[in-house]
C-alpha cells in the first residue's frame, strides 16, 4: 500500500483536504485583512486570532470525526437531530442576534461564547435525511413516500424560519432537494414537489403563469403520475399562483422594497439596499487585479458591512480583484464540490452517499447564495461563506461535515484496497 493509499485510508480524499486547508488558511488571512480599518473597531480587531483558534479546534474535530466509522453516524443521526431540534427551539426563547442576523434569534450565548445551533442542525439534518432516505429499499416513487423526509427537513426549516433566518432555511431546502435527488428520486417527482414554488414566482405575470400552468398540465399528462397526485399538484400550483399576488399586495411598501432591493438596490440605497450597493462598489472597485492585500478602501473605511463575516467575499474581490481573488476562489469551491460529488458517487452505502451529497448541497447553497448576494444575484440573507467567513460555530460545523465526507471517502478506499 503506497503513501497515497495510506493517506486516503486515514484522511479520505487528500486532494479535498488540501483544498479545504488552503481555503481555510486563506480565509484566516482575509479575516485578518478585513478587520484592518482606518478607524479600528475594537469589537472586531481580534477576529482573525479567534479564527485561528477556531480553525485549530476544527482541525482537531476533523481528526476525530474522520476516525469514526460511517455506521456510527447513522446511529447517532437520531440523537443528534433531536438535540439539534431542541437547541433550535431554545433559540426561539433565549436566542440572540449578531452581525447581519442582528434582528434574529439565531444564537445561543454560552458565557463568552455564542453558538449558532442551526449550523450544527444542518449537519444533523443531513445525517437524518441520509438515514431516512438511505434506509429505504427503493427511492420514493410518489409524493406520499416523501412524508418522512419532508418532516425531517421541514421541522428545522420551520424553526429557523421562526428565528427568522432565511439563509439557513434556504440551505436546509437545498440539503433536502440534494438528498432527495441523490436517493434516486425520479426527476419528474422532484419537479412535482418543487413546482408550487415555481408557480409562486411566475405568478407575478399572468401571461407567464398561464403558460406555466399549460406546461404543467402537459407535463402531468406525459409523466402520468397517479390521478390523485396530478390533481393535488395542479391544485396546489393553482393555489400558489392565486394567493401570490394578493399576498404581495398585502405587504407594506417597505416590506416589498426589502424583497425587491436585490433586483434594484437603488429602491432603498440608505436602508435595505445599502449593503448590496457597498458590496457591489467594493467588488467592482477591485477590478482585474485588486487594490492589494489589506488595501481595500471600501473595507478600510468601513463602508462594507459585516466585512469579516458574510461579506468576506467582497473584501477578496476588492483587494485581490478578478484574476487573483474571485476567480481562484470560485475555482477552488468548484473543485471542492467536484470532490464531494465524486465521494458520493463512489460510495456503495446509500446512507454515506446521501450524506456526502447532502453536504455538497449545503456547501453549494452557501457558496452560491453568499457570492450571489455580494453581487446582487441573490437577496441578502446573511449566510456565511464556507472556510472563509469569520465564525467559530460555522467553521466547526463545516469541518464536522468535511470529516464525515472524508470518512465516507476513507471507507470507500478501505473497501477497494
Amino acid at each position, binding site marked *: 500500500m503506497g503513501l497515497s493509499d495510506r493517506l486516503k485510508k486515514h484522511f479520505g480524499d487528500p486532494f479535498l483536504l488540501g483544498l479545504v486547508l488552503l481555503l481555510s488558511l486563506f480565509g484566516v488571512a482575509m479575516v485578518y485583512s478585513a478587520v484592518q480599518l482606518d478607524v479600528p473597531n475594537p469589537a472586531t480587531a481580534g477576529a482573525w486570532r479567534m479564527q485561528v483558534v477556531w480553525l485549530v479546534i476544527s482541525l482537531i474535530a476533523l481528526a476525530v470525526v474522520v476516525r469514526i466509522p460511517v455506521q456510527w453516524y447513522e446511529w447517532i443521526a437520531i440523537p443528534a437531530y433531536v438535540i439539534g431540534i431542541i437547541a433550535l427551539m431554545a433559540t426561539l426563547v433565549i436566542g440572540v442576534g449578531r452581525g447581519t442576523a442582528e434582528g434574529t434569534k439565531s444564537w445561543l450565548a454560552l458565557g463568552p461564547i455564542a453558538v449558532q445551533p442551526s449550523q450544527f442542525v444542518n449537519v444533523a439534518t443531513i445525517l437524518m435525511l441520509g438515514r431516512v432516505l438511505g434506509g429505504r429499499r427503493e*427511492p420514493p416513487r410518489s409524493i406520499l413516500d416523501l412524508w418522512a423526509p419532508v418532516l425531517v427537513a421541514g421541522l428545522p426549516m420551520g424553526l429557523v424560519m421562526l428565528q427568522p433566518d432565511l439563509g439557513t432555511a434556504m440551505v436546509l431546502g437545498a440539503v433536502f432537494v440534494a438528498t432527495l435527488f441523490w436517493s434516486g428520486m425520479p426527476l419528474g417527482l422532484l419537479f412535482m414537489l418543487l413546482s408550487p414554488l415555481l408557480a409562486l414566482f411566475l405568478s407575478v405575470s399572468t401571461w407567464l403563469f398561464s403558460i406555466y400552468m399549460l406546461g404543467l398540465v402537459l407535463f402531468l399528462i406525459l409523466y402520468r403520475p397517479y390521478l390523485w397526485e396530478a390533481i393535488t399538484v395542479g391544485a396546489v400550483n393553482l393555489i400558489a399562483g392565486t394567493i401570490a399576488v394578493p399576498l404581495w399586495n398585502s405587504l407594506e411598501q417597505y416590506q416589498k422594497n426589502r424583497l425587491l432591493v436585490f433586483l434594484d438596490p437603488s429602491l432603498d440605497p440608505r436602508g435595505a439596499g445599502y449593503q448590496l450597493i457597498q458590496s457591489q462598489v467594493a*467588488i467592482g472597485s477591485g477590478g482585474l487585479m485588486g487594490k492589494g492585500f489589506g488595501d481595500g478602501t471600501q473595507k478600510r473605511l468601513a463602508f462594507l458591512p459585516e466585512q469579516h463575516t458574510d461579506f468576506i467575499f467582497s473584501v477578496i474581490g476588492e483587494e485581490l480583484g478578478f484574476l487573483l481573488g474571485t476567480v481562484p476562489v470560485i475555482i477552488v469551491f468548484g473543485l471542492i464540490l467536484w470532490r464531494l460529488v465524486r465521494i458520493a458517487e463512489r460510495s456503495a452505502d446509500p446512507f454515506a452517499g446521501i450524506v456526502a451529497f447532502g453536504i455538497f448541497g449545503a456547501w453549494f447553497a452557501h457558496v452560491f447564495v453568499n457570492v450571489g448576494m455580494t453581487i446582487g*444575484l441573490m437577496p441578502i440573507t446573511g449566510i456565511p461563506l464556507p472556510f472563509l467567513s469569520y465564525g467559530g460555530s460555522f467553521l466547526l460545523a463545516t469541518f464536522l461535515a468535511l470529516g464525515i465526507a472524508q470518512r465516507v471517502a476513507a471507507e470507500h478506499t478501505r473497501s477497494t484496497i
Partner: protein
Amino acid sequence: MDEPRTLPPERRARYALGLAFLALLLLLLALFRTQVVRGGGGAAADERVRAVPLPAARGAILDRHGEPLAESVPGYAVLLLPAPRDTLRAVLTALTEALALPPVADARIDSLLDGPPRPIVVARGLSMERVAAVEERRPALRHVLVEPWPTRSYALDGAAAPVVGRVGANPAREPADAAGVSRVQYVGLSGLEREHEQRLRGTAGLRYVRMDARGSVVSAGVERPVVPPRPGSDLATTLDRGLQRQLASLLSEAAGPSTAGALIQDIATGEVLALAATGDSASTDTAGAPNPVVGTRRPTATLFHPVTALLALEDGVDPQRPAAVPCRGGMRYGHRYFRCWNGGGHGALDLAGALEAGCDVYFYQAGLRLGLQALLDAGSRLGLHRRTGVGLPEERPGLFPPSAEWIREETGWSATPATALELAGGRGLDRQTLMRMVQVYAVLLSDSAAAGPVLVAGESRATEWSPDDRESRLRVREALRRVTAPGGAAAVTGDRGWWSAGQLVRWRSGTRRGTSWFVGAFGRSGPEIVVTVALDAAASQDAAARVAGAAADWYLRRRHGTPATGGP
C-alpha cells in the same frame, strides 16, 4: 402510472456537477461584469471622498486713502459634510448645542438638506473657544469639519454699510456647481459688495477628504489634488473713511432711531466721499429695506425751485421783476387753488427773493410761463426719471414724467397747464432720491461742467446736462447763497465761515415733525462738495441743514484748516 425512471449514480453525479458548473459559471460571468466590464473605482471613490470647499478670501474694499472699509480676516467655520438626512439632523442638533446656537427649526434643516448633496456651513466666524467646544465633542460629531474660513469684517462698525453693503448666503441667486461650493461661500447681497461681486469674490478652491462610513475624516488631500482658492481683487473706492465715520455719526445723532440719509460728493470729480444712512437699511443684518440715499424717493418741493428758476432765466424772465401774482399763501388757477408752503404768503418777490424764501407761488407762475414741455425737457436733461448710475444695486430711478404721453398712461388723465405749475413748484409727479438731487445741485452750483457720481476710484462720468447760460447759473447760485447766509432759512449751515449755497424743503407752518431735507454746496471760496441730508422724522425743517453744515465743516477743516473768511 408507469414506473418512473431512477437515474444511476453516474448520471446523477454528472447532472449535479453540470448544475454546479453552470451556477459557478454564472457567478464568474456576473463577477466579470462587475469587476472588469463595469468596474467601480469611480463609485468607490465617490463613496469615500468628500469635496470640501476652500473659500477664497474676498477682496478688500478700500477708501480713497487705502484704508479698509471691508476686509477678510482669518476665522473658523463648522461644516457638515453630506450624509444621510437623519444623521445630519442629529449632528446638526448636537452642533447647535455645542456652539450654543439657537435651535434650528425642522423646516430650516429640511431646506438646508434639500437638493444635491453638498457641504453645509453651520456657523462661521467662530472664536477659538467655540472651535474647542466642537473639538471636545468630536467623537460624537461625525460628518463635521472645522475649517479655517475667512470672515468678512467691516470697519466703522457698519457705519459704511449703506454703501459698502454686506455679504451673506443667498443660494437662490447662486447656481450651485458640482461640488456645491457656491452654496457655502457668502456672496455680496447689497451695496458695493453686490455690485462688484465678481471682482471681489475670487474663485473658491476645493480639497478632498477621505471619510469612513461612520463619517469620521480619516485623511485629507490624499485622493485628489487640492484646487487652491484664488483670492478676490481689492476694490479702491472714492469714499473717505474719516468723513464716512463723521457723517454717519452726525446723522445717527440727529436722526435717532428714525430713517435718514446723507451724501457728500466732490462737485468737480463726481467722487462720492461719504454715504451714510440710518434705519433698517443701515443695518448689516437687514436685507431688502430701501436705501435712504439711493432707494427712497422723496417729494422735492422747494428743492426744485432752482431748476425752475434757471429755466425761467434762460427763458428771458426778468429776475428783478416780481411775479404777476403776489403770494398770499397760494394762488388760484382754473378751478383749483394751489397753496404755498407759507400759508401767510410771501407777498411780491423777485426771483432771488422767491428762491431765498422758497415761494411756491412765484414758481407756479414761472412754470405756467415755461410750459410743460420745457419742464419735461429739463427733467430729461437732468435725468430725473433715470438712475444716476453711481454703481449701487439698490438705486432706484427718480419719478418725473419723461413725456406728456407718459403722464396719460401712468395717471389716466391728460397733462394740463396745471401739471407744469405743479412740477415747477416741486409737487405732483416729482419724487427724487438724495443721490439724484445731489447731481442736480452739482449741475446748478458748480463753476464748470459737473461730473457724474462715481464710487470706484479711477472712474469718471460726465453729467447728462450742463447749462450753457453761466450768468443765469451764477444768479441762481447767489440766490441760494442767501438761503444759507445769516438770516436765511438754512443759516445754520453758513455760520461756520465756509462758502455755502443750498436749499431746503420748507415746512408748512404748524408742522411739528416731518422730513427735513437739505441740498447744498460748500467750499473754501467756492463750491467744492455737494452735501445732502434728509431726516425723515426731524423736529425742525433746518435739522438736516445743521447736519450738512457740520459734516462739511469737518471735511473742509481737515482739507483746508480754517475757512477763508475765518470761522467762529
